[in-house]
């Protein structure tokens, strides 16, 4: 064998290993230690108390001047199972208005083609969730050119009405800020201001990664004895079942972390069992947007608190904005009012058991549909 070849191979491998380690070192985070606790301010206690009970009112209070005339709506059903649930909810809402509904399935990698399909159908309004306009800009521009208003939820764009052709974005980043503020306050109170929080998020999705600064800002405001660190999970790791391992590794490397904040409930099946196997039972798991599995995990003692965000209510909020556009009564201030949903903290087994049988989670405040019907002049 040619010794030079061996040498080159060895250098190549050594270079690759050193390069990887250097890159990894650049992306590493520093370890922290818990302070031993501080004082929980009255403001934090009040904030938590405000969200302890399930709300009874929707956020929108301004009634329409008249019931809107008939329209047709296309909803882009994204590849995530949650979108099917949302589509069903929107269909229920627009049907209530006497409108036509069409659901269009979007491929996971091409949201824009489904939007284009809706434009070709000649619908009056198009709605979609979870995708920023920039990810399907061409199709969005085509909708603008065709005079079809677009409505969104769970993305990071700010609606500007006619100026941008985006007329709604419910449960957006401002909503994420609210979830972070409320749940971080719960952690501060629960820990006695002695919390070290790992914020599990997916940097690719702004509505999830925004939890990281949200938690940080709340800690800066209310708890100088608390710390937080991001736990970034890539979509690839998420889909290949590696996120549990990544989360457990993070907790093993950071034994001071005593709270795991999941920016999205449906992060990883099996996290509870993995934490138990790793002897990390003392780490409290909290999160946002619980599905049925997460509510069950609270009952089983595998998680401690969840911010219940009503999915069905989101789609009725969207339909409400469409009705306002239909009547020529759209107003950015009113839209922003409803962007942050009514939420509450589920932190007891009793509260969890009350909604565990609801397959799609807490739908919204009691009688929220009647409240919307009243706003729309239908009751």
């Amino acid at each position, binding site marked *: 064998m040619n010794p030079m070849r061996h040498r080159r191979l060895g250098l190549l491998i050594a270079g690759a290993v050193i390069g990887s380690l250097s890159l990894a070192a650049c992306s590493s985070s520093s370890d922290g230690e818990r302070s031993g606790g501080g004082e929980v301010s009255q403001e934090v206690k009040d904030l938590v108390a405000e969200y302890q009970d399930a709300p009874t009112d929707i956020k929108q209070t301004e009634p329409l001047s008249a019931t809107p005339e008939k329209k047709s709506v296309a909803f882009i059903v994204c590849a995530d*199972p949650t979108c099917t649930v949302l589509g069903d909810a929107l269909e229920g809402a627009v049907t209530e208005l006497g409108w036509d509904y069409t659901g269009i399935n979007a491929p996971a990698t091409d949201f824009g083609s489904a939007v284009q399909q809706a434009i070709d159908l000649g619908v009056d309004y198009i709605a979609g969730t979870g995708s920023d306009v920039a990810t399907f800009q061409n199709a969005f521009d085509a909708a603008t050119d065709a005079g079809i208003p677009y409505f969104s939820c769970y993305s990071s764009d700010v609606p500007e009405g006619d100026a941008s052709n985006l007329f709604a974005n419910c449960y957006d980043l401002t909503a994420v800020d609210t979830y972070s503020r409320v749940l971080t306050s719960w952690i501060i109170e629960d820990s006695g201001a002695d919390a070290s929080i790992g914020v599990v998020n997916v940097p690719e999705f702004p509505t999830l990664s925004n939890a990281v600064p949200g938690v940080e800002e709340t800690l800066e405001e209310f708890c100088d004895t608390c710390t937080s660190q991001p736990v970034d999970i*890539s979509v690839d790791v998420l889909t290949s079942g590696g996120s549990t*391992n990544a989360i457990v590794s993070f907790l093993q*490397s950071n034994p001071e972390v005593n709270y795991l904040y999941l920016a999205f409930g449906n992060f990883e*099946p099996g996290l509870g069992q993995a934490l138990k196997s790793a002897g990390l039972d003392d780490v409290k798991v909290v999160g946002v947007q619980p599905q049925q599995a997460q509510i069950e995990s609270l009952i089983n003692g595998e998680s401690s608190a969840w911010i219940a965000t009503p999915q069905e209510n989101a789609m009725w909020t969207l339909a409400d904005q469409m009705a306002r556009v239909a009547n020529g009564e759209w107003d950015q201030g009113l839209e922003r009012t409803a962007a942050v949903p009514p939420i509450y903290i589920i932190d007891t087994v009793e509260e969890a058991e009350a909604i565990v049988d609801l397959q799609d989670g807490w739908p919204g405040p009691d009688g929220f549909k009647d409240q919307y019907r009243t706003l729309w002049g239908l009751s």
Partner: protein
Amino acid sequence: MSTDTTKPVVSPAARRSLKSSSGATSTPLSVTLGRYSAIILWAGFTILFGILRPDTFLSSVTWRLTFSEGVVTAIVALAFLVPLAAGVYDLSVGATMGTGLVLMNWFGLNHPGLPPWQVAIGVLAFCALIGFCSAVVIVKFRVQSLIATLGVSQVLLAFQLFMANNRQLTGAFESSWLDLGNGQVLGIPVVALYLLVLAVLMWFVLEHTPVGRRLFAVGSNPEAARLAGLNVERLTYGSLMTSAVIGGFAGIVFSMKVGTYNSSVGPGLLFPALAAVFFGASQFARRPNVWGTLIAYFALAFGVKGLQLTFGPGTFWIQPLFQGAALLIAVALASRVVGQTRRSRQLQREAAADDAQAAGEATPPPR
């Protein structure tokens, strides 16, 4: 005609030349290292991260968890291995795993009276049927296995979404079923023992039975195997059905371990499984093999674990890098071996021609 006249006469100089140039008497160091590279890599990771993070990387918790978390993917890899031995690619193994999982959950939710073990037997039978269907497409319709199983995987995904109504399925199992996937025996995760039993069984069948030898014979040269009297079609059917059953078994193990169905679970395991099989195929016997696959998979898993523990969550990009690099290195090593074999054959032919020429000058040609 005496035998002496037909026996090739090789001059000592030519023999020396042949040996030295083809490497017939000594295996090149790079080939030997390549053959055991997964073990070397695993040992290297253990030493490196054992030094960098002795408190966490060398803890029993880390080893137990890494084995436990990797079991399902490793079973999917073994499912891919069986048809690969016969030269057939089964890209539907991940989807078959997901199908097994969705069926376990669906029956658990809709027919809670049925014992899970009975459902599991039904699931394995259904998965065997899936493998049979794939084989029909490949054997009867002459569709390339890569394309056929890719298509089957999408059909299976559609089936899963239909069964689950495009939702996460949860709460289907009693704790007694989940205990079967989360217990430990002498500190070893019970699911790792399931994997070990499966691996020993597969190793025995593939390496020590006529069936295994026939599979490899078909895999290395199907035409030659056919001419030798082997029933290539039946072996293709058998390998794909076995693969699907093992894929279904992975779904059953996942149902014991986690108990929740999610449509992303199965397909997401395909690439890590493939990387392990191809990396593993460059190990030991330099053909698809059980222990090479498992060692390759866990070597990479421990590498990822070590980096996560040492450098924190900022290394989320490490996992795909490792799997992609492993696949590339494995294929590169395999190509290198093939290249060496070709070069060796060429050199042998050249040496034989030289010898024949030399012998022709010394002895008269046979009549």
